[in-house]
């Protein structure tokens, strides 16, 4: 123990894995950081070097999986050819595949924080990562003309995708179909609906037309309509 001063003997990954193992074995978090560190044979300080609390570990698991998914899909050769719609689809398929590797723990964290859709505190680290990614993809789509530029709503597109994010992980958590086939359908259909809304649609034209008529009200009166 003499040399364990500024170079701790443990990596954050090891702490994380040990925590996941503990939680899944005991179905509850350790009594205290002190207790947990003692079991690991490290000091409390070693623990706090990396994590502020147990919740921080759980948040980091989500964040890391989200980063991993984004990195993984960008490595695909086909990535550059994908439209924005396909990029988002690709993200969710990879994400669900990654979540599968830690399904028990993921579901444990989701269940623990019951108030799901409203306050998913556990996702607070993952959210900005996803939103950054989504914003980039949306911007690409706006630049290429795939998505419609709308005065107030364009900024809300990423919120729409975040809602899909929450919906999809909750759907997956409850999915009991073979190989989560239903989640695949939920992704394919949900994301397609979202992107259909982001695209230029008859509603835009209707809106434009309404604006035009409002502006040219006088002309209308003259025509006797």
């Amino acid at each position, binding site marked *: 123990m003499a040399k364990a001063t500024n170079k701790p003997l443990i990596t954050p990954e090891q702490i994380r894995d040990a925590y996941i193992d503990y939680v899944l074995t005991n179905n509850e978090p350790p009594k205290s950081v002190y207790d947990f560190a003692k079991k690991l044979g490290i000091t409390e300080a070693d623990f706090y070097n990396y994590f502020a609390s147990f919740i921080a570990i759980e948040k980091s698991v989500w964040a890391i999986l989200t980063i991993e998914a984004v990195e993984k899909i960008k490595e695909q050769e*086909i990535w550059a050819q*994908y439209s924005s719609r396909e990029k988002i*689809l*690709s993200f969710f398929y990879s994400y669900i595949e990654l979540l599968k590797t830690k399904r028990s723990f993921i579901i444990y964290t989701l269940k623990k924080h019951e108030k799901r859709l409203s306050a998913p505190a556990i996702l607070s680290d993952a959210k900005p990562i996803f939103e950054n990614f989504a914003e980039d993809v949306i911007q690409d789509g706006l630049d290429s003309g795939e998505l419609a530029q709308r005065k107030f709503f364009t900024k809300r597109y990423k919120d729409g995708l975040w809602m899909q994010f929450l919906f999809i992980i909750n759907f997956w958590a409850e999915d009991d*179909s073979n190989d989560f*086939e*239903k989640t*695949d359908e939920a*992704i394919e259909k949900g994301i*397609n609906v979202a992107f259909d809304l982001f695209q230029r649609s008859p509603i835009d034209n209707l809106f434009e037309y309404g604006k035009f008529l409002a502006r040219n009200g006088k002309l209308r009166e003259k025509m006797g309509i």
Partner: protein
Amino acid sequence: MKIQESMPATKVERSAKFVKTGFQIGGNYIKHYSKKLFNPDLSRDELNENNASDIYNSLSELKGSALKIAQMLSMDRNMLPKAYVNKFSQSQYNAPPLSGPLITRTFVKSFGKSPEKLFDSFNPVSTNAASIGQVHQATLGDKKLAVKVQYPGVAASISSDLKMVKPFAFRLLGINEKELNVYIKEVEERLLEETDYKLEVRRSIEFSKACSKLKNTVFPTYYPELSSDKIITMDWMEGLHLKEFLATDPSQALRNKIGQALWDFYNFQQYELKAVHADPHPGNFLITPDEKLAIIDFGCIKEIPEDFYNPFFDLIWQDLMKDKQATIDAFRKLGLLQQNDNAKQIAFYYKSYKEMISLFALPYAGKAFDFSKPDFFENIYAWSDKITKLPEFKQPRGVKHFIYINRTNFGLYMILNDLQATVNTQSFRPVSKNNSIANTKRSHAL
């Protein structure tokens, strides 16, 4: 190619799609009758045409089993007025494809690799829709491959689709819904089998081996190691679809050659294997550059049980129909006549079904048959038009096996008609049976 932007998501949404079609059809009727007020000569053809196109539009958006049902109805041309058929036939070709990432996803699930890694090249844009899946081109080494990828959730949606299709089938065919159940079930079984790609690969290999001696017929090689329950990999077959082939204005000799290959392919299976490729829609065949028939889909196999095989083929091959009592016995076995039919009903159905089976058997009457003759098909249409109007045929009769056997054989006749081919119809015959009804149960009381 337009990528389909949305697939109706939940059962509710899918139902909504059907409901919408219902409204449209209702609307078509209203339009029809209001026009008719002013123009009494207006025929129902236009109305049928409008209905068919609305149904087609809604079915192709639904994909999956609904599309399959469109195909099936279109195969049963003998049961549908012509206008329906023309529209439905469209569904035998292209349907809009699904997204690239989902294809990658399906590959990763099956093989742990993306298609780009599994193959040397993989075209993410599909070349064809195969009703419950889509086909992609790939290469591996010096091999050019066709890779069929199934849509996720197809199997699960089949039952619910069929439930929704029932009222439409009822409307279209004028059939009582309750009576339809046994048939719907038969269709459901076949459709579910089609979603099992592992089974399809196994059968494809078996059938192409069993049929390998047939002249002028070729089969792709299947690669089980590159196939899974959602993916089938086989050789890419070069060739033309029937319509494209006909557009090249082939010689009569070539038409006959391809027609004969088709005939032999079906009848060899039907009579010798007693299990038949029951999906004779033109998308399942190609005509190769060296003038051979390539069979590229074994999704739908109908096994023919003895208790159908014997009475039915005896009727066709044994001159049984000259003997009224023997014919009636056979009709009973086939469910065409039922236990509690009275004498009048027996006389009526005997006459009607004798007509139908005589039509069916006509190609077998001589050594060869010329399928280009329009009167044969006019007679079939006339017969089916007639029976759809008769109240006696409001409820379907006959054992469930008729669905696929009729579909297969009439489908084959239709393709041969499109080909305008003359074929030797005696190339395969039923395997002789000692217990054929010609020799037994003569004493069966009327």
